[in-house]
């Protein structure tokens, strides 16, 4: 099996058009990835074992991302060869001259919007859904759509990231409005206020949302379906809505990288269909490679839409708005 995978991998590399030199990449011997995506250690290790080029992964949280990369860059000590993060962060890095163009000729099967930028390749969507404890919420009790969350029976039974400060949640709530998930703005506001009236428990980000649902402390979470995969065998399932929204995840090469060939090798490996399948299967990510889905029941039936990037000013403005609604007595 391993041999087959290796042959497939070599075949993939053979038909791709390369701008990097594989021998030079091996000579460089290493590549450093800065990323905010979690649980990707197995994929980074797999790259090392498949290519012989040692990949190291430094996790940088969103709140420290720009400060870290820009400080290192301005001091001429940027240790990353490849950077992965939310599009607004990568766009800022592009504006500051940190990124370099990549060869996107091989990105067949990716949607046009994902490869529209010359510097940043979008490879996935940080999709958000309602997840629930399937041992405690059963049958007709399972919500069928977003509006079901405002039913008073869920009062004090929902957990979600703080909508006043968590940027992705703010973008998601605004995305529900802008993508007309509720038909019109009044219905959307009814949803937001109804959700607030159910007094959800706030946590700082998505990562602490599944635990209270696993343990039964809360029954529903506004969270990410990827946890159904990464937290198996926890009794988690998702509310099967037609449309899911999420922030695009991007990846890019670094200008003046110390390992440029290894970096390009990594980027192309990362964006390959094989790797995307691994990312979906092992990390539960929603990826943009054609017909690749995470192993989550019926997820392929959902339409997953990338939401508009809010500017920092918009994020702060909406954060204040949601603070008034959710924190009001």
């Amino acid at each position: 099996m391993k041999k087959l995978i290796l042959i497939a991998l070599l075949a993939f590399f053979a038909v791709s058009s390369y701008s990097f030199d594989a021998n030079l990449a091996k000579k460089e011997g290493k590549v450093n990835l800065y990323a905010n995506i979690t649980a990707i250690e197995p994929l980074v290790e797999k790259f090392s074992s498949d290519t012989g080029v040692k990949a190291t992964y430094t996790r940088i949280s969103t709140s420290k991302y720009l400060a870290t990369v820009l400080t290192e860059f301005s001091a001429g000590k940027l240790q990353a060869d490849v950077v992965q993060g939310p599009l607004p962060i990568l766009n800022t890095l592009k504006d500051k001259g940190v990124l370099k163009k990549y060869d996107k000729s091989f990105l067949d099967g990716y949607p046009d919007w994902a490869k529209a930028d010359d510097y940043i390749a979008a490879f996935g969507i940080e999709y958000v859904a309602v997840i629930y404890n399937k041992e405690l919420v059963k049958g007709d009790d399972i919500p069928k759509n977003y509006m079901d969350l405002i039913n008073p029976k869920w009062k004090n039974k929902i957990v979600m990231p703080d909508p006043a400060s968590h940027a992705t949640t703010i973008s998601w709530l605004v995305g529900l409005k802008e993508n007309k998930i509720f038909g019109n703005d009044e219905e959307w506001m009814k949803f937001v206020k109804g959700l607030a009236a159910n007094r959800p428990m706030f946590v700082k980000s998505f990562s602490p949302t599944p635990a209270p649902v696993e343990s039964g402390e809360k029954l529903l979470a506004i969270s990410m379906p990827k946890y159904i995969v990464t937290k198996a065998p926890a009794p988690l399932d998702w509310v099967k809505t037609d449309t899911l929204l999420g922030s695009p995840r991007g990846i890019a090469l670094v200008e003046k990288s110390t390992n440029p060939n290894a970096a390009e090798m990594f980027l192309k490996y990362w964006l390959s269909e094989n790797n995307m399948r691994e990312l979906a299967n092992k990390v539960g990510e929603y990826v943009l490679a054609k017909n690749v889905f995470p192993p989550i029941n019926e997820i392929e039936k959902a339409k997953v839409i990338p939401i508009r990037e809010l500017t920092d000013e918009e994020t702060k403005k909406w954060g204040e708005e949601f603070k008034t609604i959710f924190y009001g007595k």
Partner: protein
Amino acid sequence: MLLLGSFLNNLGNFSGFTFEKYIAAYTDPEFLKIIYNTVVFVVGSAIFAAVLAIFLSYMNTRTDIPFKFLFKIISIIPMMIPHILFSISWVLLLNPSNGILNTALMNILGLSDSPFNIYSISGMIFVEGLLDLPIAYLIIAPAMSSFDISLEESSKVSGASNTKTFFKITLPVLRPAIMASFILVIVRSLASFAVPSVIGMPGRIYVLSTHIYRVVSSGFSADYGMAAAIGMSALAASIVLIYIYRYLVSETSKFVTISSRGFKPVLISLKNYKYPLFFLVGFISFILIVVPVVVLCYTSLTPYVMVPTKRAFSMMSLKNWYEVMKDPISMLSLKNSLFLGITGATLGVLLSVFVSYVIVKVKTKAAGFLESLSFLSFSFPGIVIGVGFMWFFVKTPLYGTIWALLIGYIATYLPYGIRPISSAFIQIHDSLEESSRVCGASYLTTLRKIIIPLLIPGIVSSWILMSTMFFRELTLSVVLSRPGSEVLAVQILRFSEDGLWGKLSALGIIMILFSTIIVVCASLLGKKFSKMHI
């Protein structure tokens, strides 16, 4: 740098001086409520930690209560537990929906509602107080230990009871240590983020640290200048506290208890109260410290976060332990943290002895400034301090290495080294040093032969405080750590961000085990070199 940053439009851009950040930060209508919550939280935590520490220190150092060595270790266990894990354990025990202790009490007492709600200001005080208990304990215990019995004997000869002697003699003389622990806990809880985020945020109770987190995390370009501007109120509070402390202990001669050959620590016999008090201390230790650790052990064996049921027990395995032990990054983190804990604490204590000497014995205004300066790093939000260190180190060849972490740790946590040692210094009369100097001994000989042996309990406390702090340090590590210089707390954070609570607990327990070994070794060494005990 950070102070400057709070007056700039953009941090790092030195054009455009402005008060905008201060105006925005301090005219926020929510700010008053946040300050109120913060004051209640930090003062409450400090009182709870100090009272508990005084009681446990007295029992463990001054009385003949059985199993003292065990209780001494238990008292400092919270220091070895990553704060996020300790907070989560208490959430599992006392959340109002299905907290294990709440559910048990409801079943036993036939209650319809949960008796406790951890998501409250009292819940926050309770958990933060427990986490800060070791800090208070490690400052008060050496001072209790070095207390000259003759003062208490005089009180008893005059007809006072044990209790009256404790309140009229023991406590007043211990004022520097109690004040030092109280202030350090206040400053520590001002900087605390785990408890306010894990317990406060779900309860919608915001304090300075979570407010700053909201400021930094709203949007992708974090406004560190604004965070620094808010941090200035914590800095101001810390400076005021230090000056109050210095004023209260300015007449150091009042607190001298080691002044002549007559010094000899003696244990007080509890007589008939011996076993009732033993059970009380045992009960407190069990409920407050052992139970959360047991919860961690349980969580490390389950595949996901589960309340204890028959099914949960049937699903238990050592899988999480196996995976952590074979994970190269976890093992490298353990090695790095051990190095930082042992080397860093040793260097930090050496530096602390000299700084404490200057603060206590060289009575100049500069000493007060030096003492205030040593608290500077505590007064800013952790995330801001971390970024500040990054700006500094990125200009040096040390950036990205374990040495940057070592220097950053010592610089940041120096107050933990200074406080126990300076409290111990205050109790040593100048005449001892003067006699040595009169007999022709040099300053270093006097320090080595007279002062340091008397300081051993303080030094041991300070070493334990620093090494356990360094062993589980996160604030700086999360910014400065790079591949090759990973440390335990960063690895624990990774597991936490992946929601891998089982692995998180397993690594947490490994951390506690190693910390315990370090603490036991340090305590035994201290015991060997000194008659006094902590």
